[in-house]
């Protein structure tokens, strides 16, 4: 029962608490600030679109937190009410992951924005923080969240059945909330301890076709972070070195712990710059192919009627996953015709069934998926895959484009223009175009914003 402190210097918990406590906006390099703005804008767009009651999980989580009631501290995005930051983050975190357009951090596989941004927005609204504080807290959320995943080793977590984004998310959310609540170093240690006391997330959602519990876990991670930081700020204590020792949190969720990863490169490697924003609301295995295909159709200005044949070449292992899959989001024959028509793949393409649209009826049988041995050799074991797309045009021409990376990969980050266009598309499903532009301006000017409520007020209907 007695915990031995390592004789050599501070614990990793201590180092993280110190980092959270010490990091100030002024220390953030310009490109980190810029990336934080993009991540926040992207997440707000996703949140707005996801708040539509046509997404069942969103409608239900809104209904639940409304029934709980609470102090009107923070906006539930896309509704006309506010509630406690604790329950607003539960609702918004659930929604943010609900339409499959939130980011993922390739090295860790973690979905960070869906947890950390709703947390930061809710707590910042509650405290009336300024834009710089919001940006700093989101950067910190990434730095802590990703390091916890790496320390736990995602492969080992999956082995045990734990969802890295959910388990580690609680710590990332705690870092963001703790910074905004201006916790002291000791309070931050307690907050991390309380986050660890209730961190959770089984992978069992994989067996649930509604996928609702997966999104809920993001909301719960966000809620846990706000709860832990709020309690710690009130004087509630937690285990003082949650990551270490015989009963440490890293060992609880992983059989291959690497505690050193917790505090590696703090202050020099900003994880937010390494995350990938998501361009298409469909299976990751289709993203490189969509990049190649959209390059062809826009370069040659092709419409669906101009196309005779589409061949999608992907690595051998990936082919069966996207070839006539029952899930619309994983079905190349369904996705490519829609991309030819709309030049984007957005949630409505997945959540609504377009199989009887004339373009899909005509083109679907003309899409073939080929497993290509050559492509299998390019990046063995990578999550996203290279693709070659060949398009035969009515009248005889054909075009072929190879895309080694998918948009959102670290090698192929989304440009500001791409982020803006995704944001506008998503946001305007809920708010008027003028309001969407206003939100965009405020987010790009976050470093000048004195009260975050100017932003969050625009997210309420």
């Amino acid at each position: 029962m007695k915990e031995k402190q390592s004789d050599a210097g501070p614990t990793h918990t201590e180092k993280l608490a110190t980092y959270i406590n010490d990091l100030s906006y002024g220390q953030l390099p310009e490109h980190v600030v810029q990336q934080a703005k993009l991540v926040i804008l992207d997440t707000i767009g996703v949140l707005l679109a996801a708040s539509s009651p046509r997404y069942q999980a969103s409608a239900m989580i809104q209904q639940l937190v409304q029934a709980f009631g609470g102090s009107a501290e923070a906006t539930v995005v896309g509704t006309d009410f506010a509630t406690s930051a604790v329950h607003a983050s539960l609702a918004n975190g659930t929604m943010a992951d609900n339409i499959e357009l939130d980011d993922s951090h390739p090295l860790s596989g973690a979905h960070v924005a869906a947890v950390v941004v709703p947390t930061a927005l809710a707590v910042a609204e509650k405290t009336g923080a300024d834009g710089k504080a919001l940006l700093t807290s989101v950067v910190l959320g990434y730095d802590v969240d990703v390091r916890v995943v790496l320390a736990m080793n995602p492969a080992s977590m999956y082995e045990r059945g734990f969802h890295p984004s959910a388990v580690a998310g609680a710590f990332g959310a705690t870092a963001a909330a703790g910074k905004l609540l201006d916790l002291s170093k000791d309070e931050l240690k307690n907050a991390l301890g309380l986050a660890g006391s209730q961190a959770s997330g089984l992978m069992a959602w994989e067996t649930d076709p509604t996928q609702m519990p997966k999104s809920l876990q993001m909301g719960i991670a966000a809620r846990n972070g706000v709860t832990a930081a709020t309690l710690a700020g009130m004087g509630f204590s937690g285990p003082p070195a949650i990551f270490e020792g015989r009963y440490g949190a890293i060992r609880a969720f992983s059989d291959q712990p690497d505690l050193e990863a917790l505090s590696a490169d703090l202050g020099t490697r900003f994880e937010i710059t390494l995350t990938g924003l998501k361009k298409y609301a469909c299976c990751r295995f289709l993203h490189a192919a969509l990049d190649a295909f959209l390059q062809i159709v826009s370069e040659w200005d092709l419409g669906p009627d101009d196309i005779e044949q589409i061949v999608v070449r992907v690595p051998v292992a990936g082919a069966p996953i996207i070839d006539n899959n029952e899930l619309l989001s994983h079905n190349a024959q369904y996705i490519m015709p829609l991309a030819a028509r709309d030049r984007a793949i957005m949630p409505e393409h997945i959540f609504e069934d377009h199989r009887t649209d004339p373009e899909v009826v005509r083109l679907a049988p003309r899409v073939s998926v080929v497993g290509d041995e050559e492509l299998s050799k390019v990046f063995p074991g990578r999550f996203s895959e290279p693709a070659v797309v060949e398009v035969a045009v009515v009248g005889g021409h054909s075009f072929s484009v190879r895309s080694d990376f998918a948009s959102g990969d670290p090698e192929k980050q989304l440009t500001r223009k791409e982020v803006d266009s995704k944001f506008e598309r998503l946001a305007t499903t809920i708010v008027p175009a003028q309001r969407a532009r206003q939100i965009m301006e405020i987010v790009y000017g976050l470093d000048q914003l004195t009260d975050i409520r100017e932003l969050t007020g625009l997210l309420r209907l």
Partner: protein
Amino acid sequence: MTNTHTDDAPYTSRIVDFCVDFDFRQLPEAVISEAKKVTLDLVGSILVASAPQYGASQLIGDYVRLIGGEEECTVVGRDFKTSCVNAALANGTMAYAADIEGGLINPQAPQHAGAVLTPVALAMAEREKSDGRRFLAALVLGIEVSARVGEACRTSRSYPHSFHTSAVFGHFGAAACAAHLLGLRKREFTNALGLAGMNATGLINWVTDLTEHSRPYVIGVASSNGIRSALLAELGFGGPPAIFDATKFNIYEAFSTEMHLDRLAKDLGDKYWIMDNLGFKPYPCCYDIFTGLDALLAIMQEQGLVGQDIKEIVHRVKKDRAPTIDNNPIKSHNAQYIMAVAATRGSIMPDDILEDRRSDPLVRDMFDRVRLVGDLELDKKAASRPAAVEIRTNDGRKFSKSVDWPTGSPQNPMNQAELEAKFLRLATTVTTSQRAKQIMSLIERLEDVPDVAELAALLCG
């Protein structure tokens, strides 16, 4: 959307069928009587912990008041109501704050089931205006589910992967308890239990938190999370359909190192876990010290000794039990401290855990004269935590006594009169003796109470 198929989820299906059909009318008289004992003991334990000197209780009460919520459920000892999830978080935390409450004490799979579940039944029955019968049935069902999941995950190690089993398995019982009071049907009940598993949590790392705030907190989290799971399921939220089965990502690999599916539904409906497995605590400390206290206090009483007569106390326990209680920095788990207080003051009360009595020179002096011995001889005994105590007096006399089964254990139970005396002792620390008796008599006839809100009303501050 696929639904639960019995074939895909045989164990989950068995448990859910049992839960859905569960009815007060099927319960034997003896089961109802045990459930009332749990209720009485837990209400007493929550009341005593609602006093201002309990830091965790005060802070958690302040926290739920701060975040606010629908005024539907009582926070014990407070003058406000809040949402069911908030009330259960606060009452669940208080239930384990004084560490004096009864629970499942079967040596195979002990759990603080009363502490997790009584607050759930209380909050949901108040919210749903349920009668005493539904309350009692919900409590029995919650204990049943927690115990069976605990059994199915049981290993030879107490805390596999550093998880606090009471909290983790309590999530399932809490969801079942709440779902019963909501009257959920099969599909929703399945989802409630699945959702409970998705975010089941609770680390044993609280042993490093000397303030003991996070120790009871993990219990309150389980109570609250269970309710949230049931409410979401009621709204139609999806959940994994086979949470108790050996699916790819299962609870056994996540929270245990063993899987005993056969124990899950063994004698289901014939054997109730609440029977023969309840332990009630005469002392507010770790169960491992009970036999030692029984022996010490018996010798003192039989020989008419007071503290000043005693020169030395030798406290022998099983060899493998000794490390847990050997001068543990947590006072409630510190055999030398507990025995010294009892020897000096003739009893051990909750306040003796809160305040360090070693500020009293007599206790301090006695503390140095208690010796704990891990004795291989005792390992031969069938009893799980036997003790042998030897006392040497200043005038050279020697006394010794062995106790196999402690007071309050199923083998040596506290009788109704002892339980009532304990309740009055605890309750009157915060309420009048008249009110305490009113509460006691109401619980005594709980099956005839038309609305449990009547009980809740007596628990307000």
